[in-house]
């Protein structure tokens, strides 16, 4: 087994990962080009399909922690770690569906800071809410970077961990600066299905190949074309629940199989430890069916890329929005024109990434990031997406 860890770059894995990164960057360019019509579309408040919207929410929600971390934790801690995915999924029900989505929507607020200021009639609460957005975003990006480092040091065995972090940080910054890519429903939806594909297909092939069992993946991609109202919002949440549940069945399977098949990972720590079981496990097929294991491992690598890239850029966009719309536009200079706010938002994504992985490079001149900041300011990820329903109302003031 040891030569497996010492081998050079696997062409299959590299190819799949490169395709994912390439496709993501391409989508960034593509949406940048199409953003004008897209903004017309969303501001006009026309309907978005429930299925796509649910997928889009999950594209952002399922992070590197979900994709790699849970499998690693189930492998190292067993039953206790199995509670994590369950609680991730169920927190959605308890908070969003039952208590948050309804009141927020009824209030007519589209972001948490908006709600805080309006409800308590106090700009202080807006400030507090903005700090929370930035604080949560900052700490949420850390594990994404860890996932990036782990994956890249798996693909390129000689590459130091920090280099992976910096590289992925650069790619994501470029991407956000180019397209504000998180803001097009389609792109996010594609990211969810990429992850779903990547986590489920290798498992199924593994189960079939190793256990000779059969299983069927329920491909549920139902599109409802509805009006943007409360009923549609609730339906979307229902679909989010369903899709998230299906997704979370798979990572523990990786963990349990890793427990039996890859005990040597217990010796490693950090990027060489159980965290990479999702990436490493499919390789086991290489001993019998030569390239198949590498292909599947390439697929899970691609899924890992989709996971941390989508989550990271989603966080980046929402933090950018908080900086430009709330901190600059409302607190620092309330009388600033939309154009000035855009100028501010141009520099904020690059600066916030620079904090994180010391990237001094500025992508600030791109027109498209100003689009994303103008039209989607401080949209707090899934919560607001459930409620706001892609409504452009918050931007029209």
């Amino acid at each position, binding site marked *: 087994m040891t030569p497996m860890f010492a081998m050079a770059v696997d062409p299959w894995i590299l190819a799949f990962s490169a395709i994912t990164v390439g496709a993501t960057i391409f989508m960034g360019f593509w949406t940048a080009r199409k953003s004008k019509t897209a903004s017309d579309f969303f501001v006009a408040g026309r309907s978005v399909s429930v299925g796509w919207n649910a997928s889009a929410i999950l594209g952002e929600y399922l992070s590197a922690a979900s994709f790699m971390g849970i499998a690693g934790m189930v492998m190292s801690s067993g*039953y206790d770690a*199995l*509670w994590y995915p*369950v609680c991730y*999924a*169920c927190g959605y*029900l*308890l908070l969003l*569906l*039952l*208590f948050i989505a*309804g009141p927020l929507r*009824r209030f007519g607020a589209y972001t948490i800071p908006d709600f805080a200021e309006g409800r308590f009639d106090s700009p202080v609460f807006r400030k507090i809410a903005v700090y929370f957005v930035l604080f949560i975003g900052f700490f949420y990006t850390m594990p994404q970077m860890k996932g990036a480092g782990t994956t890249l040091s798996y693909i390129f065995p000689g590459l130091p961990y920090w280099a992976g972090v910096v590289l992925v940080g650069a790619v994501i910054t470029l991407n956000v600066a180019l397209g504000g890519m998180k803001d097009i429903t389609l792109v996010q939806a594609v990211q969810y299905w990429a992850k779903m594909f990547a986590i489920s297909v290798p498992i199924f092939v593994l189960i079939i190949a190793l256990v000779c069992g059969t299983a069927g993946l329920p491909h549920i991609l139902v599109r409802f074309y509805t009006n943007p109202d*409360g*009923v549609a919002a*609730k*339906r979307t*949440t*229902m679909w989010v*629940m*369903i899709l998230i*549940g*299906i997704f*979370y*069945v798979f990572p*523990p399977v990786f963990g349990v199989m890793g427990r039996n098949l890859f005990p040597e990972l217990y010796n490693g720590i950090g990027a060489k430890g159980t965290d990479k079981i999702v990436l490493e496990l499919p390789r086991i097929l290489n001993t019998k069916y030569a390239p198949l294991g590498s292909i599947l491992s390439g697929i899970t690598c691609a899924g890992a890329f989709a996971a941390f890239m989508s989550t990271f850029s989603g966080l980046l966009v929402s933090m950018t929005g908080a900086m430009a719309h709330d901190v600059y536009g409302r607190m620092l200079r309330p009388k600033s024109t939309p154009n000035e706010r855009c100028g501010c938002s141009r520099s904020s994504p690059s600066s916030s990434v620079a904090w994180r992985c010391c990237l001094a490079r500025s992508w600030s001149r791109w027109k498209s990031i100003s689009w994303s900041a103008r039209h989607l300011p401080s949209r707090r990820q899934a919560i607001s997406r459930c409620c706001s329903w892609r409504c452009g109302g918050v931007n029209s003031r």
Partner: protein
Amino acid sequence: MHSEEFLHSLMRKQLKLSIACALAFLGVLLGLPLANYFWPELMAIRVFGGFTLTWFLLGIGFFPAVWAISLYFIRRSIALEDEEVREVQSDQTPEP
């Protein structure tokens, strides 16, 4: 149509529904560790070949339970809104 009273009665009903669903959810959530504690032999039964009952319930069985709760909540919540609207409209129809 959009009187305060109308809104408040709807909000009260929906809050009640929310709390009921949350309690059901908490029941399921806390029920599993309690079952592990009080009936360890039962939860250690092997189902579907490999895993024990408690693994099965937590890893897979949990999600359908949550789906059922959210489906019920969504159905009821929408029905409540419809009922309320119908009531208000029927109050207004006598006027020519």
